[in-house]
């Protein structure tokens, strides 16, 4: 597989990986294509303009080189961003930040943005906050996908 230097760098030294203690939001998603699973944790704080931003972020991922690299880079992209902005991080932005991905690996990058959206969903719902319609739809889809994969992985 031909990966860019950026991808390999992130794969070699992933940023912000591991469990987070007492996170404000957790997102767990799975990818039906080949079954990779990602868990993302966030801590939310306020910036100077009193807007809510992602203060801390960590991930755990089971997946290929591209999945690990996209997981790592999304933590960089999301850190310090407002929740609104973070929700808008899309796969194209992630792929670009990595200097490109092999075509067959583009699907791995969706995982990261979905996990982030899920973590934000989790934070909003825990705090009884209003959840944007699009996020609600996304959540439903992600939830179904994850169930399918976890079932597959539990097979002995």
């Amino acid at each position, binding site marked *: *597989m031909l990966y860019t230097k950026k991808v*390999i760098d992130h794969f070699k030294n992933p940023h912000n*990986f591991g469990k987070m203690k007492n996170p404000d939001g957790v997102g*767990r998603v799975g990818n039906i294509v*080949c079954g990779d*699973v990602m868990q993302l944790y966030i801590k939310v704080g306020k910036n100077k303009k009193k807007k809510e931003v992602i203060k801390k972020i960590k991930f755990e991922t*089971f*997946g290929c080189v591209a999945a690990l690299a996209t997981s790592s880079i999304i933590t960089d992209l999301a850190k310090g961003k407002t929740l609104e902005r973070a929700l808008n991080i899309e796969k194209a932005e992630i792929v670009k930040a990595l200097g490109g991905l092999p075509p067959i690996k583009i699907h791995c990058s969706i995982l990261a943005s979905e996990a982030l959206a899920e973590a934000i969903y989790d934070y909003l719902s825990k705090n009884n906050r209003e959840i944007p319609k699009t996020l609600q739809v996304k959540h439903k889809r992600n939830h179904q996908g994850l169930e399918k994969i976890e079932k597959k*992985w539990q*097979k002995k």
Partner: protein
Amino acid sequence: MKKAKIYLDYAATTPVDKRVVKVMQPFFDKKFGNTMSLHSFGQEAKMVVEDSREKVANLIGAKASEIIFTSSATESNNLALKGIAFAKKNKGRHIIISSIEHDCIVESASWLEGQGFEISKLSVDRYGFVDPKEIKKLIRKDTILVSVMHANNEIGTIEPIKEIGAVCKKAGVLFHTDAAQSFGKIPIDVNKMNIDLLTASSHKMYGPKGVACLFIREGVKVEPLLHGGGHEFGLRSSTVNTAAIVGFAKACELCKKEMKVEIKRISTLRDELISGIFKEIKNVSLNGHSKKRLANNINIAFSFIEGESLIMQLDILGVAVSTGSACSSRKLKTSSVLSSIGISPLKINGSLRLSLGRETKKSDIDYVLKVLPKAVKKLRAISPFKK
């Protein structure tokens, strides 16, 4: 420190042995004749190809006239399946293959299915063994061919070829075996093992790429796939690749001479590596049988991590291996061999194949045992699954 470069993917391909390179050399620029030419250049090439045929045949107890040179094991397998199917279609249209065959058998069979043939797939047990009794049950009046590989490319399982051959012989059905992984590595006798057709490849046993062969028992009719000048007894028209064939033959000679010692040496290293991995790393399991496998094959599942990542991690550390993970396959599909033997999808994605070879040394094994636990630990630290 110089970066390590340890190749443990001999089941994918092998380097050409230096002694093989040497005998091939003159056939590129000095002895370059076309075997079909009547002048001395051509005759010289013709003689050396026939001499090579003898050497290749020698390794499996066949006659020289029963060996057809082809360009790859894929071609040989295509010729075996399609060639027999078309030659025998008036007798019947039923073919039996095992569920752990190489893609080129599976794809040839499914192409034949589209041409009106019927394919039955034999299941295997949890080690990958085919049960000859099952074949007996599957054979029908219209069965024309059974094809079961000799040794599996992923898990190294060695099939009971002799017994399978005996079942086929008794039923009057032709038996083909794909021996790409075993040829030159373990003893084969086409007569004792009741084999009618056998595929072998040069680049898996220290010969050059681009040459392979199909053994076709005397009297067995095969319809050619390539028509033209009538090379290879009319079964495979194409200008003969003399240099490669000479190399292939030399590789056969070397394998024959060194086989016994190599099996012992490599299986010792293999067992050391397996037990070392089990000692150093938790949550691992061996895929395939612990004893009845090729001397050079190891296939281990590392739970909670994904194979492509593990391969890359090891590549960075200077160790080249392969995996059955869906993520590493071009079709994003998990290894069908591993799922046929009942390995769980999660474990398949974390499976690694390490295949040893002629240049593998004890120090290589030691190095792998030093870096592999680290690589696994690192990926497990990133994994969301229970550790």
